[in-house]
């Protein structure tokens, strides 16, 4: 622990927010075509000012409390703790309205969009959780909502597609490339290029051009803000030994880590989706397989061929099926501040069933990757671990049922 603190000393202050150009270390920036410049510039010049206005904070906090149901509980998982031989707490983002952490960010961004005078909202979605969270706040605020979703994801996440439609959103299939999250993001960006004045793009993760990674991290930081006081109530200390979260783009991990980023005594554990295995050719473990590159408006680690073509990733979990990672996480990886693990499809499934039987909680497949990461940590009785249970498993029931039939 002391070694870690010394080794990281030179990075002090580089994690909580990017520099004025949007860089965390060497990652970030705003690599956008000129057509997006006015929109992104408007956002960059205003987001902090708007976010920290008293009136905005009150509206945001009130909605998180009364509409989302925050604070989400920090639950001491006794039987899971017994299994791992350490104190394990689950941050229950699965209990939020709409069933995942995604709503923290969409509430923040829809309020911001209103302040910017926008009346049309677009979003991309992978598993559909961000799409549902966006469609929800659009219904709440009476705004037009268009969600781009990969054709392949539309097939495997049918319940969420139905929810979005019922909420009044238009769901447009992305039919290019791998037909998943990456391509849905391309389509959303193209929509924004074509609608430069009336539209706000609610990006669902800590990816995209500056200021998105910072803005989304700040909206999600409510997760670790709560962990700090909740853990103190449970254990007498605000500080755990480990924080564990799954990472696709990385928004729930950013929120879970945020208020501990500069506290180098806490081990930040990010679990990526290994798919069929990191070296199988069918994986989404970006820090293991990616190289520095530019995707969706920022410089980060990107899974790509030698020729710089972005590859089609694979994960059983649509929310982690992304060939990039937010620039903050790329910096956590490169600096050594974060510990990056990966879990395969099979390991995630196993952990999902384990949690269900031990604690009576059916997790989302994404969150199941974080749980699978616990098996790779050498935990002792002295350790206090907080795992972000980012979402609930209702949307994944068809995958879980298929797995049950196999066994």
């Amino acid at each position, binding site marked *: 622990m002391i070694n870690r603190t010394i080794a990281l000393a030179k990075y002090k202050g580089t994690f909580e927010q990017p520099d004025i*150009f949007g860089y965390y270390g060497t990652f970030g*920036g*705003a*690599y*956008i*075509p*000129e*057509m997006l*410049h*006015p929109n992104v510039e408007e956002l960059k010049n205003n987001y902090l000012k708007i976010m920290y206005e008293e009136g905005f904070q009150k509206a945001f906090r009130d909605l998180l409390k009364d509409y989302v149901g925050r604070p989400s509980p920090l639950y001491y998982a006794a039987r899971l703790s017994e299994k791992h031989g350490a104190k394990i707490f689950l941050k229950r983002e699965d209990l939020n309205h709409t069933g995942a952490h995604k709503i923290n960010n969409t509430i923040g961004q829809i309020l911001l969009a209103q302040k910017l005078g926008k009346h049309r909202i677009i979003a991309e979605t992978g598993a559909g959780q961000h799409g549902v969270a966006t469609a929800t706040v659009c219904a709440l605020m009476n705004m037009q909502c268009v969600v781009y979703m990969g054709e392949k994801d539309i097939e495997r996440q049918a319940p969420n597609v139905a929810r979005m439609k019922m909420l009044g959103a238009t769901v447009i299939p992305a039919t*290019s*490339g791998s037909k998943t999250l*990456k391509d849905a993001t*391309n389509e959303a*960006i*193209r929509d924004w*290029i*074509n609608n*430069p*004045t009336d539209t706000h793009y609610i990006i669902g993760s800590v990816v995209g051009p500056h200021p998105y990674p910072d803005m989304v991290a700040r909206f999600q930081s409510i997760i670790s803000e709560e962990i700090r006081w909740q853990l103190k109530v449970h254990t007498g200390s605000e500080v755990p030994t480990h924080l564990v979260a799954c990472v696709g783009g990385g928004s729930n991990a950013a929120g879970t880590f945020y208020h501990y980023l500069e506290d180098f005594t806490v081990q930040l554990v990010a679990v990526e989706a290994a798919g069929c295995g990191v070296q199988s050719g069918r994986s989404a473990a970006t820090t293991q397989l990616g*190289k*520095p*590159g*530019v*995707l*969706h*408006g920022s410089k980060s680690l*990107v899974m*790509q061929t*030698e*020729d*710089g*073509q*972005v590859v089609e990733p694979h994960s059983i979990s649509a929310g982690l099926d992304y060939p990039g990672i937010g620039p903050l996480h790329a910096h956590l990886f490169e600096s050594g501040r974060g510990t990056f693990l990966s879990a395969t499809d099979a390991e995630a499934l196993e952990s999902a069933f384990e949690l269900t039987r031990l604690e009576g909680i059916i997790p989302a497949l994404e969150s199941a990757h974080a749980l699978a990461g616990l098996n790779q940590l050498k935990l002792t009785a002295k350790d206090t671990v907080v795992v972000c249970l980012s979402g609930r498993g209702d949307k994944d029931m068809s995958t879980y049922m298929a797995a049950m039939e196999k066994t």
Partner: protein
Amino acid sequence: MSQTCLSCLPDRQGRINLESQMSNFKSSLMSRIQELFKKKSSRVLNIYCTAGFPQLNSTIRVMQALQKNGADIIELGIPYSDPLADGPVIQESGAIALHNGMSIKVLFEQLKGMRDLHGDYSAKVTVPVILMGYLNPVLQYGFEKFCSDAAAVGVDGLILPDLPIREFETEYGQTLRKYNLDFIFLVTPETSAERIRKIDSLSTGFIYAVSSSSTTGKDKDFPDVERYLQKLREMELKNPVLVGFGIKDKATFQSACKYADGAIIGSAYIKALKENPEEESTSKKFLEAILK
């Protein structure tokens, strides 16, 4: 071209930077693009085609056919898996080109010798050639190696729409100058006058005026476009202005040329090539319809 020669002054340690003096000397020679605009100040026609489309080896044949039938500049698109600023027609051509096996390495192999095809003068590519692509494949190839190889095969300029101004100024611009490559920035109707001035000061070759904030291949309202082009003209920029996005036929080309130095056609030409992949007859028919 007026470039302030800051590097001719001794730096803080009192040294004079010889390398950048050399590159300033080189860039004081006119590039092929600048020479073109000196000779021809109106109705300059730039045709875009994706490299490796419709066939992997059709790149040079397409260029020859375009040149022969009256294109003043050829813009070759480097296909990319995630072309954010392109509409469906160019996206599809890029996907086909990638499937055909196109890459930067293959492209440079194909372009090698385009300025000097032995014994067949008529086949030699003499018009300015620009590469348009996205930053990621170029970064993987190596930015400096890319510029060096592009210059070596006779490429004149680059369009990289996702290379930001700040990174151009701090990191990449000097490499482009070193290899004497023109760099063409985009402006849109939403670009402020102040930013247009800045873009004009950084651009060499010409400025690519996006005719409305849209991905390529979309139809647009022309009166709005004309007001915007008139504004650009009144700014008396140092660079010529070519209009891109939305130009597809004689009428749209002529309207664009009323206010700008010329125009860029992409999607409409790709569509024509898709319907009839025979390069010469397609290019002849397409260009005649626009230029006659």
